[in-house]
């Protein structure tokens, strides 16, 4: 099942072209990684796919229907987005924050019920935040806040999850735990996952499809094994890398 399709997408920001005539199909069960240099337009591309920023040309279809014709609440039940660094300015508990993931499902006068509460608690448990359910979000560390954002996404439980640098601020154990959790819960049957990542090796380990944003409108799209080559990565980062093999897996190290 195609969850999201991009047709002839043209995106530019600040006078720079991010992509030209980009065609893309994100199928259920896939995990996509977006790689590229700082400021090259990865976030802009992610926001465009999520329908939070209009493309210059082309269109995005969600389950075959143009995004522009979907009601924003309908979109929010299908697509979940985790944005970079978004600290809270007003007090709120960890549990209350996770519960906003239920917002697109509730009618105007409807309150969160026990089922919603159970979903939020389950998401906090998965992200190892259960003990902090009543903590004030302002007192969380950067990593804890990042995990809370992902717990909110899990509470929202959309078919397609788009995450901008989801393992920012996380320690090594939580990086792996988070990526494992996302792959298990957000890219199973009927679900797909798209992540902006900076770690090539983690992208190689967790993503089966990759999207390399190279600048000047050049975007390389394809299966991990076709796209992740030394030449492509050297060009992508403008820095020489070396490829090593260890126990049958490829690793890329900067020179």
């Amino acid at each position: 099942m195609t969850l999201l399709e991009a047709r002839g997408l043209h995106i530019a920001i600040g006078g720079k072209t991010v992509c030209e005539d980009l065609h893309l199909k994100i199928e259920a069960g896939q995990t996509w990684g977006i790689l590229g240099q700082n400021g090259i337009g990865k976030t802009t591309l992610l926001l465009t796919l999520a329908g939070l920023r209009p493309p210059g040309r082309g269109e995005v279809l969600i389950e075959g229907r143009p995004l522009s014709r979907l009601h924003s609440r309908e979109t929010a039940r299908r697509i979940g987005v985790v944005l970079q660094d978004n600290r809270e300015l007003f007090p709120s508990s960890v549990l209350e924050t996770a519960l906003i993931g239920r917002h697109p499902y509730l009618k105007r006068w409807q309150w969160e019920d026990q089922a919603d509460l159970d979903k939020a608690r389950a998401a906090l448990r998965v992200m190892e935040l259960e003990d902090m359910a009543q903590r004030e979000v302002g007192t969380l560390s950067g990593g804890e806040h990042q995990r809370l954002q992902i717990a909110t996404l899990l509470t929202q439980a959309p078919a397609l999850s788009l995450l901008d640098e989801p393992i920012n601020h996380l320690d090594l154990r939580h990086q792996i735990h988070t990526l494992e959790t996302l792959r298990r819960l957000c890219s199973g049957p009927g679900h797909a996952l798209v992540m902006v990542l900076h770690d090539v090796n983690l992208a190689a380990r967790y993503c089966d499809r990759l999207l390399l944003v190279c600048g000047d409108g050049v975007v390389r799209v394809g299966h991990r094994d076709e796209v992740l080559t030394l030449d492509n990565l050297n060009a992508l980062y403008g820095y020489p890398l070396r490829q090593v093999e260890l126990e049958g897996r490829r690793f890329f190290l900067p020179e």
Partner: protein
Amino acid sequence: MSRSQAQTLAHPGRRYGLLILLGAIAGASFLFALITGSVGLDWQAVWGGGDVQQRLILELRLARAINAFACGGLLALAGALLQVLLRNPLADPYILGVSGGASVGALLALLLGLGGVWMTGSAFAGAMLSIFLVFALAHGGGGSWTPTRLLLTGVVIAAGWGALISFILVISPDTHLRGMLFWLMGDLSQGSASLAGVGVLTAGLVLALPIARDLNVLVRGDMRASALGVPLSRLRLQIYVISALLTATAVTFAGNVGFVGLIVPHFMRLLGAHDHRILLPACVLAGGSLVIIADTLARTLLAPQQLPVGIVTALIGVPVFLYLLHRNSAR
């Protein structure tokens, strides 16, 4: 308090605990306003007994208490809405220049020796002018309407009004100055109860409650709100119009009563009302009660001298708020 939050969410009946408490406080503050003053009234008079003179005094005090409640409720509700709209915890109802416009209108009327309806109308016209100016300029040039742009436009317009207010004060004859200063500091001594205040307060709450859960999402950022299906530009426009009308109404019939709109929303958040479905009505009840108590003290502390109510709201609010802030950070 934190455990009760979880229960609040799980059990519909407990959700309204804070509101019931605040409702009781509001009732008590009305009673306090009715029985306090230079002529002492006992409970019997309040419940319909007493002679004609007592009933007249009661009516005057009730009218004043209703005005005070409406003023406090309007300002606290507007403050809570504007803090979300501007995503700025320091925002208060006066930050977008609405009160500046109203003040210029009111002072011009006072300068020309006009009072009553003329002054009210002039203040309201000034507030509306300011609302449209800020709205049009923040929108101008086809640019998008960001909280920062709105805030900057409002602050600059407010500064402009501030200069005009100073100018009018400088050129006014001494005989007018005292009345003008009282108006600027907040004055609830107008006689009759204004149904407009209560009406606009009710309308504001009725319009704000349906979007209260959207506000829970909007405080966490524009992009996150959009991603969760909140129609951003429509919601912003709704909040702006509602809060501007609330502020314009409050300023028109009570002048500048400072502090209430800034502090009451934070006060309620410190008491655990993070959810706007609870926070908004809580602000109305708490803001109204605060101004009733402050106004009652303002007319009795130095009687027969009356103090501007804005001085008393600050004198009560500052220590209470600092205590709460300290207690919360120590926890």
